[in-house]
C-alpha cells in the first residue's frame, strides 16, 4: 500500500465519521432549535410556549418527532412516486455535507479541512433548492407548484448577494478556507470582521434570511396564503425531513456567518467550540426575532429588494474592498 492510498483511506474514514457526527449534531440541534423557536415565540407573544411534555416542555420536540415517525407515509394520487419521495432526501442530504468545512473549534474540530470551504457550502446550498423544485412539481397540487416556483426563484436570487458578501471577506483575508478566516480575526468584538465590513454583514444577514426561506421572506411556506407551500402534501417523515433540512440550513448559514464575521470560535477568554455555539445561537435568536416581528414581504418586492438593492450594494462593497486591499 502506498502512502497515497493510506492517505485516501484515512480521509475517507474521517469523512464518514464526520458525516455520522454531523447527522447526530443536526438531530440534537433540530430538537433544541424547534423548542427554542416555540419558546422564543411564546415569550415574544407573552405566553408560556410548550409546557406540558417534559419539564417546561423540553421534551416537546422529541414527542413531535416520534409522532411524525409514526405517521402514515401517504403519496397523493397522481403524484410521481419516485420524485415525490426523492425530494425530501435531495433537500436534506446536501445540508449535512455543508457542515463539513466549518471549524467548530481550534484544532481537530473541523469535519474536513477544505481549501475551498466557502465554495463547497454555497454549492450544496444550491442543491437544496433542487429538492424544493422536485417537491413542488411532483406533488400534483397547484398550490405546491406555486410555492415551489416561488421558492426556487427566491433561493436562486438570494445566493448572489450571499456570495458577493462572502467574497468580500475572502478578498480581505485572501483565502476561502474557513479555518484561515477564523484565524485572521481577533478575540474581541472590535477585532472581528464585522467591525471592518459592517455592510457586508448586513447584506449577509438579509440574504441569509432569503436563502433559508425564513420570515420575512417565507412566502414559499406562507401558511396563510398557500396552506403550506411546497410541502403541503407531505406527511410524517417526509415533512420531518423538510423541517429538519430547514433548521439545519439555518444552522449552516448562521455558522458561516459566525465564522466569517463574528470571529468563529474565538472569544475574549478560553477560545473554543462553546464560543462558536454561543454565537451561532445568538444569530439564530436574531433570526427568530425577525420572524416573530415582521409581516411577510410580497414576492415581487422580495425579488426587488434583492436585485435593486442588495446586489448593487454587494457589488459596490466588493469593489471597495478590492480597491482597498490592492491599494492599502
Amino acid at each position, binding site marked *: 500500500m502506498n502512502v497515497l492510498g493510506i492517505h485516501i483511506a484515512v480521509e475517507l474514514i474521517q469523512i464518514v465519521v464526520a458525516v455520522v457526527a454531523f447527522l447526530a449534531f443536526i438531530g440534537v440541534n433540530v430538537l433544541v432549535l424547534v423548542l427554542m423557536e416555540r419558546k422564543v415565540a*411564546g*415569550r*415574544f*407573544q*407573552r*405566553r*408560556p410556549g410548550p*409546557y406540558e411534555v417534559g419539564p417546561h416542555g423540553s421534551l416537546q420536540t422529541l414527542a413531535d418527532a416520534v409522532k411524525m415517525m409514526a405517521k402514515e407515509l401517504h403519496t397523493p394520487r397522481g403524484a410521481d412516486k419516485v420524485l415525490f419521495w426523492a425530494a425530501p432526501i435531495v433537500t436534506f442530504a446536501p445540508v449535512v455535507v455543508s457542515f463539513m468545512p466549518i471549524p467548530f473549534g481550534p484544532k481537530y474540530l473541523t469535519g474536513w479541512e477544505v481549501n475551498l470551504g466557502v465554495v463547497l457550502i454555497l454549492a450544496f446550498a444550491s442543491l437544496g433548492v433542487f429538492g424544493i423544485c422536485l417537491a413542488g412539481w411532483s406533488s400534483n397540487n397547484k398550490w405546491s407548484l406555486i410555492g415551489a416556483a416561488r421558492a426556487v426563484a427566491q433561493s436562486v436570487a438570494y445566493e448572489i448577494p450571499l456570495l458577493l458578501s462572502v467574497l468580500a471577506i475572502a478578498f480581505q483575508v485572501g483565502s476561502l478556507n474557513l479555518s484561515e478566516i477564523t484565524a485572521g480575526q481577533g478575540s474581541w468584538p472590535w477585532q472581528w470582521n464585522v467591525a471592518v465590513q459592517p455592510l457586508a454583514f448586513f447584506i449577509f444577514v438579509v440574504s441569509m434570511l432569503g436563502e433559508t426561506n425564513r420570515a420575512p421572506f417565507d412566502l414559499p411556506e406562507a401558511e396563510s396564503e398557500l396552506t403550506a407551500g411546497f410541502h403541503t402534501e407531505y406527511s410524517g417523515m417526509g415533512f420531518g425531513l423538510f423541517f429538519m433540512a430547514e433548521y439545519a440550513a439555518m444552522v449552516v448559514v448562521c455558522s458561516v456567518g459566525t465564522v466569517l464575521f463574528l470571529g468563529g470560535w474565538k472569544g475574549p477568554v478560553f477560545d473554543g467550540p462553546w464560543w462558536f455555539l454561543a454565537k451561532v445561537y445568538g444569530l439564530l435568536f436574531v433570526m427568530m*426575532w*425577525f420572524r*416573530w*416581528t*415582521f409581516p411577510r414581504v410580497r414576492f415581487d418586492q422580495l425579488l426587488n429588494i434583492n436585485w435593486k*438593492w442588495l446586489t448593487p450594494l454587494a457589488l459596490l462593497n466588493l469593489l471597495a474592498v478590492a480597491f482597498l486591499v490592492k491599494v492599502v
Partner: protein
Amino acid sequence: MVTGSDGKEHAELGKSPSPGLFREIRKALEGLWSLVVGLGVTGNQFYRPAVTVHYPRQTVDNLSTYRGPVELVPSDKDPDTSKCILCGMCAQTCPSGCIEIESHQEEEPDAPEAEGKAAAAGGDAAEGEKKAPPKRKKKIKVMDKYLLKFHLCSLCGQCVQVCPASALRFSHEVYLAGTSRSDFEFDLLARLRAQRRGGTGSNPGRGGSG
C-alpha cells in the same frame, strides 16, 4: 414630479435621476429604521411576564358575573324545592326548546303554613267561629323534574327574565366537561338538592369545585 392626466404623479423623463435616487435611498433608510423600531417593541415585550392564565395551574377569577347554565333558586320556605310556580313560561319562551318540566298534582297538605298559593286558603283556618264545611283539599302542582338540555341552550336569558317567580338564575359554572351528550341534560331540581347536600353536583365525574 409632474401630475399626469390620471391624477397620479410620474417622474419627469429627461431630468437627472439623482434627486429621485436620493429620495429612494432616504425612503429605504427610513423604512429600515421603522423595522428597527418594530424590533425594539417586540424586544421590549420579550422581557415582560406572560399575560395568559396558565390553566390548570391557575384559574380565572372573574366568573362571578359569567352566564353559566341556569339553575333553580331555592325557595325561602323549603330550600329543597325552588320558587318555581310551574307556570311553564320558561319552557314556552325558550328559543331553543331546551326546557321540559315534569310535575304531578298532589293534594295540598293540612299544615296552615302551607306554601305559595295554598296560603290564600289558609285564612279560613284561623277563623274558628264560623263552622265552615270541610274544605276540599286544593290540588297543587309539585315538580318532579326540571330538565334542561344544556347542549341546546344559547344562554340568552329569556327564561330568567320572563319567570314571574324569579325562580331561575344563572349559575357561574364553566368547568363542565362530559363525554356524551346526555352528560349535558341536567335535572335542575336534582342539582338543587345535591347542592344543598354539599358538592355542587356540577360535573358528572368530577368532585365539583364550586
